[in-house]
């Protein structure tokens, strides 16, 4: 015997609203873990995007072999450039020196790097500077480009003269003039100033100069990246300052994994929360079935087949979990797309972007939870012996 679709839908609706509290609690118990799943995966995706973006830049990071903090002599740049004098495969080499720094009488740490001004633009094209900005950067030794997030927080704007107290030598206030607030850059925290200016300051105070913290080497292709990774280290092997060259993605990934390995830990957490949702949904579905054992027995005795009983319980469970999934996925999506919460910044990945694909995946996950949760009760319904079930009919 078959039930017409409209009747079937009405029956389904009545079933779900028969115990609205229970249906609501089940959907909520699925929605909350799905919400954690969406947030966790958004952070994990953020890290992956960040790393993929690093990979797309076709850059190598060259550090001192022993430790990232140990300096390298600036003279290494010429030796690296000499590996490809035509600059067809090795496009540019940019030395960077960490300054860190803070404003005078303000403990908040800044992230500032001094870079080789002549190769910076070619090495970091992702900053998408305008011609005026490039011009100001090249003309003015005191030029500094500040991350737009930092600029907003500090109330800085283009043209401002600012002073920064560096966390490294010469440990004296240095004056800069802002030439850009990097409106199109992905990174909106870091400030970039000219290394030739820093060198002047270092020499003025007799501090050790002529060092960089690392070099970033822009290559023309992926093959060149692989080639120069080995070639650079070979060039300095056996010298006083040996190097360790990594592609930018591996270099960045080392930081990420060493600081609590957030991507891995969040993935574990997401898996656990999905497990919790399965438990919660299974609980309700088995309760639903138990409450309606007699009803299912009656339906079966009227001629409805096992397939009908199975699909009935499965559809109910699917619907409850779909509602939970939709709520769980849409709440973080709306919060992080349309409300001020979207301005919250997270180190490295910047703002949390909840991709529609993550939400779709989460809803899919919720549907899967619905199917898994109803498997056991639905199976019980299929196997139910009508006679014995009806015998206990109230």
């Amino acid at each position, binding site marked *: 015997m078959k039930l017409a679709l409209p009747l079937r839908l009405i029956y389904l609706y009545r079933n779900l609203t028969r115990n609205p509290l*229970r249906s609501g609690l089940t959907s909520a118990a699925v929605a909350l873990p799905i919400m954690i799943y969406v947030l966790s995966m958004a952070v994990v995706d953020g890290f992956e995007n960040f790393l993929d973006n690093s990979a797309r830049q076709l850059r190598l990071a060259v550090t001192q072999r*022993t430790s990232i903090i140990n300096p390298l002599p600036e003279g290494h740049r010429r030796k690296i450039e000499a590996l490809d004098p035509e600059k067809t495969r090795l496009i540019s080499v940019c030395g960077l020196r960490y300054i*860190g720094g803070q404003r005078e009488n303000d403990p908040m740490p800044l992230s500032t790097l001094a870079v080789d001004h002549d190769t910076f633009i070619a090495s970091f094209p992702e900053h998408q500077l305008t011609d005026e900005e490039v011009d100001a950067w090249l003309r003015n030794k005191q030029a500094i480009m500040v991350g737009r997030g930092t600029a907003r927080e500090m109330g800085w704007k283009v043209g401002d003269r600012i002073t920064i107290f560096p966390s490294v030598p010469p440990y004296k206030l240095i004056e800069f003039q802002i030439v850009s607030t990097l409106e199109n850059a992905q990174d909106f925290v870091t400030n970039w100033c000219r290394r030739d200016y820093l060198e002047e300051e270092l020499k003025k105070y007799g501090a050790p100069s002529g060092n960089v913290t690392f070099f970033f080497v822009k290559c023309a292709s992926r093959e060149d990246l692989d080639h120069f990774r080995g070639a650079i280290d070979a060039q300095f092997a056996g010298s006083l300052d040996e190097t360790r060259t990594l592609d930018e993605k591996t270099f960045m990934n080392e930081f990420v994994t060493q600081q*609590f390995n957030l991507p891995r830990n969040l993935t574990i*957490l997401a898996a656990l929360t999905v497990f919790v949702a399965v438990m919660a949904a299974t*609980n309700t579905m088995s309760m639903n079935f138990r409450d309606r054992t007699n009803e299912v027995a009656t339906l079966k005795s009227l001629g409805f087949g096992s397939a009908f009983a199975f699909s009935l319980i499965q559809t109910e469970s699917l619907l409850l979990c779909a509602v939970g999934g939709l709520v769980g996925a849409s709440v973080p999506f709306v919060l992080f797309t349309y409300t001020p919460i979207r301005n919250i910044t997270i180190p490295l990945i910047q703002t949390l972007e909840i991709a529609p694909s993550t939400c779709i995946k989460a809803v899919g996950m919720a549907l899967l939870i619905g199917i898994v949760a109803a498997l056991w009760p639905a199976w019980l319904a299929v196997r139910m012996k009508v006679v014995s079930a009806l015998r206990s009919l109230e």
Partner: protein
Amino acid sequence: MALPLTYNFRNLLVRRLSTSLTFFVVTVVVAVLCVLLSFAAGIRASLRASGWPQNVLVLKTGATAESTSIIYPDEAGRIVQTPGIATDSSGQLLLSPELCVQTSVPRIGPDGTPANVAIRGVDRVAFDVHPEVKLIEGRLFEDGAQEVIVGVQARDRYQNLHVGGEVMLGRSTNRVFKVVGVFEAAGGALESEIWSGRTMIADAHNFRFVSSIAVRLEDPARAEEAIRYIKGPAVRMNARTEVDYYDDLSTKTRQIVLLTSILIGIMSVGAIFAVANTMYASVDSRRREIAMLRTIGFSRRSIVTSFLVESLLITLTACLVGIAVSLSVDGSRQDFLSDTTWTVLAYELRVTPEIILSALGLSTLVGLFGGLAPAVRASRTRIIEALRKA
């Protein structure tokens, strides 16, 4: 009149599937809570055990950590006039100039990824300034020898740092230093470090400066005076008590605690719904039973209490299992790269009594909130109506 506990226990056994599913939900939430907090507790325990209130750490003004601080000998000389510096039995000032560098050492484990381990070059006076540093194995490094002693956490977390092992140091990582001893430092951050003679480290790196100066005062009460002097015109350097310095480094743990609280908050609400669901089902299927209990004289209050006890029975036993699961990570070794010092801090995950208490508190709340509404509904059962159906 209260209902006996066995009544609740047996009721739970009637709905085995439902009870055990809810039980698992709470177990997972508690286990996640304990494990996440054990990270923060481990780091905090290590950093809290570090430093003395009477030790003042002098860094170059502007430097945020020892690794980025450079103090030249003439600047170091200006410290000696600091008021309140303690002396040893021979009258020597307890001032310890220290040189901090790093080297890359692979971690113990299948992947063996390299970690940036802190190396501290010290003079003999350092052992009087940091009296918590005690050799537990082997001997001290000898002056002028390429020898190191290693902290117990570093030995257990990184490769080849046992006594007799070797570690490559120096600007070109080409000097072989032999491990001759292992030290502990009251569980503090120094246990993640490798120590050697300052002159040997300075020579290996070709450095003519120190990173920091640790000053031990006679009395912690004089710390403020000493810090004022060092920051003042006579010295012009940055000074903080060691306790404050390590407290700043533990900022990261506050972020973990915050993140954990948000995640666990959301998960707990989910768990409350699961408990409520189970308890509502339990109430609905026991209407007649409840009516009967009321008829024979049990008050509304004892019905509410009974249902609350039932839901607490689930959540608290689940809590105990969750804690037991999380104890399996207790003591396991981790490390994290501080973005202030750029060196690794090795620590043990700690499921502390505070964490256990917060887990118990959380599951009590989940039990109470999840059980309250169903319990109230149970107590409002209309006796006549329910009995009529019997």
